[in-house]
Every structure is written in structure tokens, then in C-alpha cells.
């Protein structure tokens, strides 16, 4: 068991391909996108649906990407991405690289059928889901990837109900169930691991998917300086995990020796401030059940 460490900050291309964007200070998604583009290079063609990353990059007449990039209809990120891949191949490009970047809402809810279809077709494309656990660009609405207990504008915390009553969808395993060539989870708290996973996806012959946990200071209510810190802590508490699916097998990249306290982690984010001890117990129980399964069935 080990996190992937071949690439590191020093070995990365020092040129920036994503610059001058208008994301909030400390935005986790923009950090993931910036570093992914250093690995993918400026020859990659990018498809982004509506969502924060499109909204902060294509602000007429500003264009924050060095790469060719297009805004797709919301539901069609993967369809457009594979369409571009086919076009690049038809044009005789030597190493065509077509990459989709979508948020959690654009991936797990609205774009899920086009993603499923594209994986099923088996063409080479990369899909990176930047997960900030809500529809942020339209003002923090709950998505299928919002975790239990989180307050959003559509799952507010009141006297009776404390934020979201549903569990987070397991998008990583939904994608893996397609028998995809490569899938991984990542976090902006473990950036070396993330960039190496992007490199693996780039080297893949078929479809690949990376799900990167991306804190959002504006939507989660935390200081802009702790984005990377929270992204690390969530893995250390066991509430998120670094894993891969390759050649039909799941493997865990990291197993914290002891989990860090869940309560301290959640209380650093306004969206969880209302949570009571009983609910924290529930979150810990769900976590422990998930880890028991992973440790039993997955390679370590």
C-alpha cells in the first residue's frame, strides 16, 4: 500500500496553463484543475460544463486557459469530451488528449448518463470530477455528493432536521462498476498522489476517471487558508479515502493508523456546525462500516 509519488512539485512543468481565473481565493477545485493541467500539458482539449470552473475561466473577454477549452451543455460533459477525442483522431493528431472537468452536480446527477455511455464506448478520454459536495456556482444547493449532515441552501439546518439527511453517492464505485480501465479517488490535501493519478490516466489507453475532493471556502464556510489542510484532514479522519481501481481490482493507497477526530474536523466548517454528538456517532459508524468492507475486500 502506498500513495503514488513518482511525480512531485519539483518535477512538474513550471509553466502555468490556468492563470488569472476568477475563482474565490483558496478555491480547491481551481487548485486541482491547475495542477492537472501541468501534468496533461497545453495540448489537451478541455470540456467543462456549467459550474464554478467554467464560470471563473471564460469571463468574456478573459480566457484563463492556455489550452483549447469549451463549455458543454450541462448534461453532456463526457459526450462532448469523447466527441472531441473522435474529432482529434479524425484530424490525425498523434497523441489526441481530450479531458472533461466537471463538478459533483455535473457528474453524479446531471451528467451521469453521458458519462456512463462514454465509459461504455471504451474510447480514450479522461474525466476529472472536482467534488466540492454541492452545486456551488448557483449558490450552494445539495447534490448527490453532498455528505450527510451538511447544510446547504436546499438542506438547511433547522430545529428538527440538521442539514442533509441523505448519504453521499459512491461515484467512484459506480464508475468502477462499468469495468473502466482506470479510476481513482484523490484529494487536494494529497497533491502528489493526485498528480500521479492524473499521469496514470494520461497513460491509459481507454477511459479513465479521477474523483478529487476539493474544499470550497465559500460554500463550506471555512477560512480560505485551510483548503489543503482540510483536504488532508478528511483523509486522515477516514471520511474520504485514496483508492484506485485498475485491472478490475480495487486498492487502497493509504490507511491512517488511527483516525483523526471527526468532530474537530467537521467543526472547522460552518456547514457542519449544527451537528450534534449523536449525528457524529452516526457519521463514525458509517465510516467504520465502509472501512471494514474496504479492508476486507480491497488490496492494501
Amino acid at each position, binding site marked *: 500500500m502506498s500513495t503514488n509519488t513518482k511525480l512531485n*512539485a519539483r518535477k512538474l512543468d513550471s509553466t502555468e496553463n490556468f492563470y*488569472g*481565473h476568477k475563482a474565490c481565493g483558496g478555491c480547491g477545485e481551481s487548485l486541482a484543475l491547475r495542477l492537472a493541467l501541468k501534468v496533461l500539458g497545453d495540448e489537451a482539449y478541455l470540456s467543462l460544463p456549467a459550474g464554478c470552473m467554467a464560470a471563473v475561466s471564460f469571463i468574456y473577454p478573459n480566457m484563463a486557459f492556455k489550452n483549447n477549452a469549451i463549455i458543454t451543455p450541462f448534461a453532456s460533459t463526457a459526450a462532448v469530451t469523447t466527441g472531441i477525442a473522435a474529432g482529434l483522431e479524425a484530424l490525425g493528431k498523434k497523441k489526441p488528449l481530450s479531458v472533461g472537468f466537471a463538478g459533483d452536480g455535473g457528474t453524479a446527477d446531471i451528467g451521469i448518463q453521458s458519462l456512463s455511455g462514454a465509459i461504455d464506448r471504451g474510447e480514450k478520454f479522461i474525466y476529472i470530477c472536482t467534488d466540492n459536495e454541492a452545486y456551488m456556482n448557483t449558490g450552494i444547493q445539495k447534490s448527490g455528493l453532498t455528505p450527510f449532515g451538511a447544510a446547504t441552501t436546499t438542506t438547511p439546518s433547522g430545529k428538527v432536521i440538521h442539514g442533509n439527511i441523505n448519504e453521499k453517492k459512491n461515484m467512484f464505485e459506480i464508475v468502477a462498476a462499468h469495468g473502466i480501465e482506470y479510476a481513482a479517488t484523490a484529494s487536494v490535501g494529497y497533491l502528489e498522489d493526485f498528480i500521479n493519478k492524473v499521469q496514470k490516466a494520461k497513460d491509459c489507453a481507454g477511459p479513465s476517471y479521477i474523483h478529487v475532493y476539493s474544499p470550497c471556502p465559500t460554500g463550506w464556510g471555512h477560512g480560505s487558508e485551510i483548503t489543503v489542510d482540510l483536504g488532508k484532514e478528511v483523509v486522515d479522519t477516514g471520511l474520504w479515502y485514496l483508492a484506485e481501481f485498475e485491472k478490475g481490482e480495487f486498492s487502497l493507497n493509504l490507511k491512517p493508523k488511527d483516525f483523526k477526530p471527526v468532530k474537530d474536523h467537521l467543526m472547522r466548517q460552518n456547514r457542519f456546525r449544527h451537528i450534534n454528538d449523536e449525528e457524529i456517532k452516526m457519521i463514525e459508524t458509517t465510516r467504520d462500516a465502509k472501512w471494514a468492507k474496504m479492508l476486507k475486500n480491497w488490496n492494501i
Partner: protein
Amino acid sequence: MKEFKMSPKPMWNSLGDIPMGSSCPSFHITDINAGWRVFKPVVDLEKCIGCYRCYFVCPDGAIHMSDDKKADVDYSFCKGCGICAHECKPKAISMIKEEK
């Protein structure tokens, strides 16, 4: 390191001056982000050990490593989020209140 030159803000005096169509050249940047900052990161070059951490973690790519491997902030595009200072182990970066 950023690779573009700032593009001039288009002068829009009449309809004909407005670029048509829904596309624009790659890296067409007309606005800087400096005005967003409340605090600005200041690097103490004596303390900086050139570990690349701040460069790695900046969501805006606003830090690059200079030829002598020290952190160099692009204040035109730094938003003052403070991640670099928070992540710098030797505490070589301080966040100083901007004077308006």
C-alpha cells in the same frame, strides 16, 4: 510561470468594436486580480528553504520558484488566500494587511 502578456482591455465605443462570436484566443487575460486581497503574502527570503510547497499549493499559480530557488509571488494575480503561508513549514511567509 505565466506565459502570456496581458491583453489590452478592448475599447468599446461603438457596437463594431465588440468582438463577435463566442470564442476568444487562448490565455486572453485583460484583468488582474490584485484588488481582491485583504492580506498579502510576504516571503522572508532568509527563511525560505526553496521546498516548492507554496508553489505547489497555490490555487492561482501565483508563486513561482526563482532561479535561486526562492518563492516569488506575482502580486498581480495573488488573491491573498493565505494557503501558501499556512502550508509553509519554516514559516517563511507572513500575511500582511494590505494598505488601501
